[in-house]
């Protein structure tokens, strides 16, 4: 019997891995373009991390501040990303975001309204104008539900609770993917002419994180293993405001919309400390600056009792808060016994987003492997050294659409029969089963706990050479430990087994973070070095590149920034047009 007969096989033109905002948008576009689309996701449909996005979608539709346009949005994004962004991605993003938002409304999304009946926009950190189209503080939910309901009526086949562990290639081109059903542990093969990665970030490698179990760098490592390059992995965004007390809720996100709606940050003495760090933008400074400020206040002993700061919105009045920030109100009321309409919240930085990821071509989202595309958080380059709040949802839509379009075009052009390599599949199967075959070994959860501790303490907000070197050494040990974990029970819905596989990805990506962080001897955006506290213009001329060498080890390089056209350079040189 051939290997192929043993496996369940599904065939599509395009397979999308990940069903968050980017994955769904990509699937819809590919389907519209006539491709047969399969959407594979680790969770149930509609549960992806996009639902956690709260504040809004940044798009210069200029309903509230009429002066806004894509140029200003582009400039804000480049400034926020400390000019390390891929300029073309930032340009496309700023230009196309308004259209993508309006399109959502055409599909049934209901954003909050202005008095004129158009989409309401709120201010956010780093954005010159009021730019975030929002629905209270549950914008992500609105977006994913709209896309989900649009998608299910388009004939997209959704494969829920399925994890992809390997990309399959035929003669260097993508030919399919190998994975397992979480439900019963059986293996499955997807045959496809092109594959879109939309798997999100890597937050679960950190101890204090707003990310869920799914965020384990799957897509990044699938691409890396297949030979694609990763970019700017050292930039991990710590959201300045996560919950820090009680222990059960540590890391849960407190939306930036609290600050957007007028919330102020104070230290234990009641001093509004952002006056000191960014007197101009105050609380609406970029996330890297606010997160560092909270950290520094604590270092000097002026933090809140549980090591954070106080965020106060109570001056806005109970009705306004309940209308504009309903889920924040309930979240604090129910999980922390704090009434935010009468008192402050205690907040601190939490790992939130990975700016780096798979290196893609800006216009097409194509990776260096023919047939492999990537969009959303899994792709790198768009946000540079630091992402502005609200730019992620628009990123998902703009590049999700582009990925769907170009992947389906690619599939049309490459219609020749692709072969699946039996050996590749056998290896992938063997790797997954090996966890059950050992007589003894560690619990994968304890390795994960150690990884989180290591990354949090040594490769966290502030980094220093000796810590990074130590972390790189430790990661080698963790990698070996992770390979030798032992799984109890059967392959039926076994979270321990799932963790054992996810752990491998997290450790490789963690190595990429640590190595690139060591290479970047400056502080820029989300990457802060204690030993190199200043931004060095020389380091602003290159991006970090990570790839797998022929011997299987991880190597890093520097790659010069792509040349920006003159008109955009001039745009960035212009003095700020307006201030609020």
């Amino acid at each position: 019997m051939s290997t192929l007969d043993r496996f369940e096989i599904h065939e599509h033109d395009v397979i999308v891995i990940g069903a968050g905002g980017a994955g769904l948008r990509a699937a819809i576009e590919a389907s519209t373009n006539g491709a047969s689309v399969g959407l594979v996701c680790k969770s149930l449909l509609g549960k992806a991390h996009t639902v956690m996005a709260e504040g809004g979608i940044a798009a210069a539709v200029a309903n509230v501040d009429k002066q806004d346009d894509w140029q200003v949005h582009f400039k804000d994004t480049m400034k926020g990303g400390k000019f390390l962004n891929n300029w073309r991605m930032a340009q496309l993003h700023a230009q196309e975001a308004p259209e993508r938002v309006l399109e959502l409304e055409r599909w049934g999304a209901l954003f909050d309204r202005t008095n004129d009946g158009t989409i309401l926009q709120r201010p956010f950190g780093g954005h010159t104008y009021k730019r975030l189209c929002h629905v209270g503080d549950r914008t992500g939910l609105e977006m994913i539900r709209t896309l989900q309901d649009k998608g299910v009526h388009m004939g997209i086949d959704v494969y829920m609770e399925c994890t992809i562990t390997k990309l399959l290639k035929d003669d260097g081109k993508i030919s399919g993917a190998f994975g397992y059903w979480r439900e019963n542990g059986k293996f499955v093969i997807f045959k496809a002419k092109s594959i879109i990665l939309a798997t999100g970030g890597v937050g679960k490698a950190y101890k204090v994180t707003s990310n869920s179990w799914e965020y384990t760098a799957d897509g990044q490592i699938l691409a890396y293993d297949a030979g694609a390059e990763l970019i700017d992995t050292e930039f991990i965004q710590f959201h300045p405001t996560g919950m820090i007390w009680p222990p059960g809720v540590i890391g849960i996100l407190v939306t930036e919309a609290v600050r957007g709606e007028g919330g102020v940050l104070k230290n234990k003495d009641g001093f509004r400390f952002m006056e000191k760090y960014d007197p101009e933008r105050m609380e609406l400074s970029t996330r890297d600056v606010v997160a560092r400020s909270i950290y520094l206040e604590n270092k000097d002993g002026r933090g809140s009792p549980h090591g954070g700061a106080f965020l106060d919105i109570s001056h806005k009045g109970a009705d306004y808060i309940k209308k504009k920030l309903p889920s924040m109100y309930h979240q604090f009321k129910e999980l922390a016994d704090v009434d935010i309409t009468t008192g402050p919240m205690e907040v601190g930085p939490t790992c939130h987003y990975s700016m780096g990821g798979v290196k893609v071509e800006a216009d097409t989202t194509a990776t260096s492997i023919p047939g492999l595309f990537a969009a959303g958080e899994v792709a790198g380059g768009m946000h540079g050294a630091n992402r502005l709040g609200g730019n992620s949802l628009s990123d998902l839509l703009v590049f999700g659409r582009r990925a769907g379009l170009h992947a389906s075009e690619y599939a049309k052009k490459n219609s020749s029969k692709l072969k699946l390599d039996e050996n590749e599949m056998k290896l992938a199967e063997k790797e997954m089963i090996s966890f059950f075959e050992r007589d003894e070994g560690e619990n994968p959860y304890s390795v994960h706990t150690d990884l989180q501790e290591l990354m949090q303490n040594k490769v966290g907000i502030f980094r220093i050479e000796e810590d990074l070197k130590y972390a790189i050494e430790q990661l080698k040990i963790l990698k070996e430990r992770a390979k030798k974990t032992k799984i109890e029970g059967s392959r039926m819905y076994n979270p321990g087994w799932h963790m054992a596989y996810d752990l491998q990805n997290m450790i490789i990506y963690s190595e990429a973070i640590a190595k690139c962080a060591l290479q970047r001897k400056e502080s820029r955006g989300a990457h802060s070095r204690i030993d190199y506290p200043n931004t060095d213009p020389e380091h602003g001329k290159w991006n970090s590149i990570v790839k797998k060498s022929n011997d299987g080890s991880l190597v890093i390089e520097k790659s010069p920034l792509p040349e920006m056209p003159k008109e955009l350079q001039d745009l960035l040189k212009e003095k700020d047009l307006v201030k609020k």
Partner: protein
Amino acid sequence: MSAILTEKPKEKESFGKTQRKDLWWFEPLVYAVGFGAFIFYATWAAFQGKHYEYGPYLSPFYSPLIVVDWWKFSPAFLILWIPAGFRMTCYYYRKAYYRSYFMDPPACGVSEGCKKYTGETAFPLIFQNLHRYFLLGASVLLCFLWGDVIKAFNFNGHFGVGVGSLVLLANTFLLTMYSLTCHSFRHLIGGFKDSFKCGYQYNLYEKISCGNKHHMFWAWVSLFMVGFADLYVRLCSMGIWTDVRLI
């Protein structure tokens, strides 16, 4: 997840089976007793056919008073079917008696045991859909009840206030609130629309919606009060209670 449902026929659980540890039976029991006591009293009072008037007061069970030769029973039965129907088809009372009497379900997450269920899709419960017509009937009766309230302040051509006047006023006010917060009324006043061109209509709809949140409260207090109003008139008429004149 596989798309095919491989479901086996469910085991029918015995009535009342649950993992709930709280006193889930308490609420339906209170409703059953409260509602039952009212129905018992109202039926008895309606059958009496006497002691429904005292001075300027008329018991709400008998209003409007229709005395005709061909009707041999208590005059209450000529009109009582309207408020009875209004309450029986009321969206709130339906919940209460489906739970307390039909045990369908007795409480959330508590097993009903084995039985056939057609909900409100078949006879007789399909007639619940006519709630709005009972609302219409009840509104007509309300006009008469307000007339009775005016009469209750008229003691032989002179304005006066007795405790009974206030009881009837309170009763009619509560019944009005109960009717105004009705789900069907909320629908008819604006709930059927998808967008409001007229600001006044929207404001009215919002007010009714706001009151509708407390429909259960108005349902219970008005039920209690209407029973009490009848009892008050009845006991005064029987000479057991004395109506105190305030003015």
